[in-house]
Each structure stands twice: as C-alpha cells, then as structure tokens.
C-alpha cells in the first residue's frame, strides 16, 4: 500500500437551504466513513480558508494570495492509502465535490527508498 493525497479544487461553496447543506455534508461524511471503514484513510485532513499569504523569493516578499481562479483553489486535502494510483483514483470517485463542479487532484506521496 502507498500513500496518496487528495487535493480538493474548486466546487461551489456550501449554499442553499440548511437541509441541502446538511445533505451535502452528510454525503462527504458518508464517503469518508466508507473509506475509513476499509482502513484507507491515513488522515482525514482539513478544509482550508480560501485566502492566505504568498511568500516568494529570497527577499521573502509577502503578498496576499493565492488569487488563482476559483475553480483551481485548493479547498482542503485528505491523506489516503491505496494499492496504486489507479486504485487511489477509484477511491476518489465517491467524493461529493463532483456534484458541485469540483475537481479531485490525486498525487502520490513520495516514498523513501
């Protein structure tokens, strides 16, 4: 088994009636629970604020950021384990972010040795 990171990009922010929002949340929790029950979640991760700071260069210039396009902004991450990248990709299929136009970027964690 190897480790992979799911980076959640874009997707509509939660809105709509409280019931709809709660439904969305429950879909996420359901999906994560499924993976957790199979022992595939190494770290459920966290949501991230949409804005922050960018520190660049030797001068350590600090600017506000990241002001990427909304669809690219990373909203959170989760650390999973899977047999290989195809398996990891398959695991991502249940993510509710696809219902709201988002993207899951699947990246292998670099292994030692």
């Amino acid at each position, binding site marked *: 088994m190897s480790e992979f990171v799911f980076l959640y990009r874009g997707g509509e922010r*939660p809105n709509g009636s*409280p019931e709809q*929002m709660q439904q*969305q949340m429950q879909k996420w929790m359901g999906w994560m629970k499924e993976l957790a029950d199979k022992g595939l979640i190494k770290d*459920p991760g966290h*949501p991230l604020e949409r804005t922050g700071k960018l520190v660049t260069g030797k001068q350590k210039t600090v600017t506000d950021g990241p002001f990427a396009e909304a669809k690219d902004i990373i909203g*959170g991450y989760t650390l999973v384990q899977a047999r290989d990248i195809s398996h990891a990709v398959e695991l991502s299929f249940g993510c509710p972010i696809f219902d709201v136009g988002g993207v899951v970027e699947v990246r292998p964690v670099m292994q030692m040795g």
Partner: protein
Amino acid sequence: MVAALTRLFGVHNLALAEDVVQDAFCRALEVWRFRGVPDNPSAWLMTTAKNRAIDLLRRERTARTFAPELGRLLESEWTLVPMVEELLGPSAVKDDLLRMMFSCCHPRLTEDAQVALVLHILCGFSVAEVAGAFLSTEVATAKRISRAKKVLGKSRRLFDLAEADVAARLSAVQRALYLLFNEGYHGASPESAVRVELCGEALRLVTLLVDHPSTGTAATQALAAVMCLHAARLPARVDASGNLSSLYDQDRSRWDFGLVAEGQRLLELSARGSELTEYHLEAAIAALHAEASRPEDTNWRQIVALYDRLLDVRPSPVVALNRAIAVAQHEGPERGLEEIRAIASLNRLASYPFYAAALGELELRCGRAAVAGEHFQTAIALSRNAMERRFFERRLALCCGESVKP
C-alpha cells in the same frame, strides 16, 4: 442567534446578522465534514458566529453604524469583546428573542406578513415552510417576506418592551407562535407531519411571553394552555412504528399528564377577567379531550358548543371542519356530512388532505365504502409527506376490506 446579532448590529443591519449566521453554518459544515460533528454543535456555531461578529465590528465600525444604543461600547477595543460576549450570552439571548419577536410584528405590516417574518427569521422556516403554514404559494410568500424585511430595515432599533405599547403587537406575536406550534403538531412539511422540535420551540417562546409581566396576559396564558394540552398528546400521536395516530386511536396512557396538568393550570389562570379569546376556546376544547380517558367518554356536546363560539371569534374553514367532525361524533355521520357541506368558503379546503379524509371517514361510517374510498384516494394524492400518506392508505385499506399492513 439572528436575534442576538441583530441587537448587536442594529435592526437596519438585519441582513448582516443573517449573513453572519449563514456564514457560521457554512463553515461549520465544511469543517465537520472532515473532522466529524463535535459533541456540542450549537456551542461551536455560537463561538464561530461570535468571532465573525467581532471581526466584522472591528473592520466596519468606521464604515457603518451599528446598534445606536451601544455606540461607544462597540467602538472601543477595551469594551468590544466583553460587550459581544455579554450580548451573545445565554440570558441576553432570551430577552433578544422577545425583542426580535415584537420587532417583527411591525404595525405597518399586515398580521400575516408579521407572522411570516417571525416564522422565517426567528424560527428559521424556509419560504416553502412559511407558505405551507399559511396554505399559500411560495411565490406570494417570498414577496411578502422580502417586502416585510424592507419595512423592518427602516427602523433603527429593536423594539423595547419596557418602553412601548405592547398590546398592539401582542396578538400578532401570539398568532405567530400558534402557527409555529401548529406546524410542528400537524404540519405540511415534506419530511414529517409531526416535528416535535417546532412544538418545543413554540412552547419555549410562549413561556417567555407568559413569564414577562408586560406580555403575560390572559390570552397569552390561554395560548400557552392550548400548547401544553396539545403537546401532552405528542407521545401518543406517533406510534411505535412512526405512524400517525388520530385522537380516536391514540393510546391515551402515553399522554404526558404533567403537561396536561400544566395546561389545565394555565387555562384556569387565563379564565380570570372577562377576556374570551380563540385561545381560551381552543384550550377549553383541548381540556375536554384531555379529561376523557377514552374517546367515547368525551363530552362532544360541550365541544360542539365551544366550536360554535370559536367559529364566531375565528371564522375559518378549518375550524368549521373540526366543528363538523365534532357534530358527527355527537349526532352521527350523516349530520356531520350535512355540516361539512354547509361550510362557507369550502373551496379553500380543496387542497387540504384532511378535508378529503374527513369526508372519507364519515362516508365510511354511513356504510358507503366505495365513496369513502374515493375520498381517501384524493387525500392520498394531496398528502404532503410519507406519514400522512401512510395514514390515509390505512384508512383506504379499511374501505376495501383489506387487512391493514402493520
């Protein structure tokens, strides 16, 4: 929470208060989906809302005016945080609910608009749910609410119970709470016909009204009595399988007799003085039901007499329907059907499933199973949630002589 924040921000910033609450809710859901729901979700939400409120006040205090009476205290960094803590603390929130309730009942709004506002802002009803409570359409209700919010936005501060004339607004507040309770007890929501939380909220709010000297009038006590007496039946209203159980079928041993006693106590209190409101009459009817240990022991004659008076005070097709049903109990189903046919503005009941069901029930008792069956089919088609539908399906099965599925 919206009420407390509105006190902090001022009534003209109601939209801002709603945004803060909405925002806190969104953030909560985003975090909880990764880390799970915390043990005390409402405390979490409150803390989040508080922090956003503080941030907002700091950022915006030069650009906007907030609550006029709090002015100086919000400007200074020394007092800002303690002020927010105090205003969003548990005891303050209680008073703010009352203030908010009364603020919503603005004299320039129609009573229906006032009620819609209370249901929407204070009780968190969606537009669809408010529409259901009024037997009105979503479009009309949305317009009514947005116009009402504009009127509300023009006032500068929340209604102050100590200063102003409460009597004028009190009846609208009472009606709003009545409708809230009703929606929980006998509602039109697609999730469920019975939502105990709404009844609980209405009871909680009416208790605030009863306890406060300016608002604890005889009518308020009578309203509280109605709620207690109906709420007492809630444990039996939904049976063990999650099915709706009518007054005639309920296992009365499951009624909450503490609540019955409380309702009777409040009814007695409300009977001092000469005021006789619709709430008095409804409470008296509910008390008569509560006193009967079996449906056949119910004093139907008295109940019909009370309904006669209720119809004078609050003429409505639903009251007339309930009266007709009581007449049927007292004088037989044919008489009940006569009374139903004589109801004024009967057309307003056309989409009310329990009207069709009442016809079905009475036709069945007259021995006309086929006709009854048609009425129950109509009721099924009009039912607004699974619970209602199953209830009517069981009655339909009786018409066709099928055994009733458990």
